[in-house]
């Protein structure tokens, strides 16, 4: 399996506090990976680094077949290169309809001139309808996304990610605040997405991670504590001490 993203020796300091400490991480094409770790372990900061929001003090972040360094690219360029991100708090454009949100995310030229001249054609509308069907929001296409429930917003955001057709999907706590049924639907969405692309899921909930049934990376104080199957890492004494045993 080819390596899609390679993070090596990355460190970040906020006002003297080391949030990420010599972190190394790899993920291949079409791999599903769960990242767990206690609050403040640096999971969100790790995503910030990969997506260009935070610049690391040292280390390398290498992407794709051409081994580009992501550290020289801005957020928009990184997204265009094929990395999509879902935030911890659902962030959809509440003043716009579900359809408009999806159309904005759809993989199309991002330059202002092509965006200005863009008018949705039938194929695009069918694509958004299919996506809406998949995330269970077909009925809500023409509703303002601000009117959706919390869980629906989370799905819309996942739908927008899928619309971007990224090669790597970074998903931050997708199941937070969801009912058990909603969680199940979310698991299905992620498993389906991981068939064709790499997916990194940050999650607290062990049950949720178990259902994903994938390799797990445990973060603690900004570096990797353990890596392997869920059973493997949960039997690791270090992991039990810092995370599970509390």
């Amino acid at each position, binding site marked *: 399996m080819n390596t899609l993203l390679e993070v090596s020796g990355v460190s970040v300091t906020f006002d003297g506090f080391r949030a990420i400490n010599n972190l190394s991480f790899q993920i291949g094409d079409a791999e599903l990976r769960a990242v767990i770790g206690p609050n403040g372990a640096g999971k969100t900061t790790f995503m910030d680094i990969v*997506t260009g*929001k935070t610049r690391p003090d040292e280390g390398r972040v290498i992407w794709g077949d051409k081994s580009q360094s992501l550290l020289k690219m*801005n*957020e*928009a*360029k990184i*997204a*265009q290169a094929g990395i*999509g*991100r879902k*935030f911890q708090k659902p*962030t959809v*454009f*509440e*003043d*716009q309809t579900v359809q*408009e949100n999806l*159309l*904005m*995310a759809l993989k199309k030229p*991002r*330059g*202002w001139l092509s*965006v*200005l001249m*863009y*008018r*949705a054609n*039938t194929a695009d*509308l069918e694509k958004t309808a299919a996506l809406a069907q998949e995330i269970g929001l077909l009925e809500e296409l023409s509703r303002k996304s601000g009117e959706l429930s919390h869980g629906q917003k989370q799905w819309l955001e996942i739908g*927008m990610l899928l619309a*971007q057709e990224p090669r790597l999907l970074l998903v931050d706590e997708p199941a937070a605040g969801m009912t058990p049924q909603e969680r199940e639907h979310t698991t299905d969405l992620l498993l389906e997405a991981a068939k064709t692309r790499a997916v990194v899921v940050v999650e607290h909930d062990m049950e949720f991670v178990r259902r994903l049934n994938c390799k797990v990376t445990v973060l603690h104080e900004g570096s990797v504590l353990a890596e392997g199957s869920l059973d493997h890492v949960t039997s690791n004494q270090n992991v039990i001490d810092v995370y599970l045993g509390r």
Partner: protein
Amino acid sequence: MQRSFIAKNPSVLIFLACLALFTLIVTVLSEGFGVGVISTSFVKTLGKTLCLCLVAVAMDLIWGFTGILSLGHFAFFGLGGYMIGMWLMYERTRLIVVESLSQTEIPATSSEIIDGIGNQIFGVVGSSDFPLIWAFSDSLVLQLAMVVLVPGLLALVFGWFAFRSRVTGVYLSILTQAMTLALALYLFQNDSGLRGNNGLSGLQNLPGVTASQDEVSLWFLWASALALGLGYLLAAWVVSGKLGSVILGIRDNEARVRFLGYSVETYKLVVFTFTACIAAIAGALYYPQAGIINPAEIAPIASIYLAVWVAIGGRGRLYGAVIGAAFVSLLSTWFTGGQAPDIPLGFYTVKWVDWWLVLLGLSFVVVTLFAPKGMGGLVDLLTQRKSPNRHGADLGPDDGALREQEASQ
């Protein structure tokens, strides 16, 4: 599934119809071509108001839709006025100089004519040489191009620096105030090349036109109405598409837009420059009606008034900006023009010339706190109250389907 642009935005059609009707009524009642109920000076006031509505549309695009509170758009408005003013002044002075030199026995050489024009224009600032920036002032076409190019370039350069370093929010507003202040202070200097605090004057006289001001004022009213109509249509078209989605997204959460792969800085720069060009065109139509432009016109306070109009009218909807600019600026003319009756309180007389600004400031605060939708919000109330009534209701199942009255036309 795809409906036409007008069908999706019925308010555009209503707006254009109202604008056309307004123009027609003013024309019929004017002194120039109509029955003479409306004085020529009031026609000019109305024409100027249309220009202010156009710059308010630009302000709404940049603030209400993109979320950038620019407090410098009157700099572009003023620059547009200066650019057209240069040609108006040059050409009219040239005609006068040529006329007076033709009385002499030896025909004047062209350098004598140029010197004569220079003396006439720059005598007030103790000079007679043409500064470099007047290089194109003898050509209407070039000077018209500069109406858009000069403010557009200023906006492009300013915006490039400001947005690239990710200056946002109140810091950006302060930066735009600094820009317009710096420009005004520069123009105040006598050696700025634009006649210092005298500014450019006599702009109401079109060179070579013998028609009276009664008629010229109507030409400008029509031109202003046309510009407002086209500007409104263009702005509505821009925001109705995906670009509208993206800039609304930037307003509501610009980080999220970045992670979707859109270069937020580029989009901000495009909208900033585009609105600067609209403001410049509005200014180029405004100042020939005002007759004079001087650096005080682009003082920082002017751009703040612009924001107040848009806030009171209701930002985030184009007709709100137009209503706000028209209502507040006309009311302001009425109060500050001394037409509003003073209120004697016995111990104190409220003179509106002094108190109008206080009233305006208070209304701004009240609107911001209690009616963030502004006057445009009244339209929501009205349409909601009307909707149970079948008359004028939508014919189709969707919002914005053909309306009864449109269908019967």
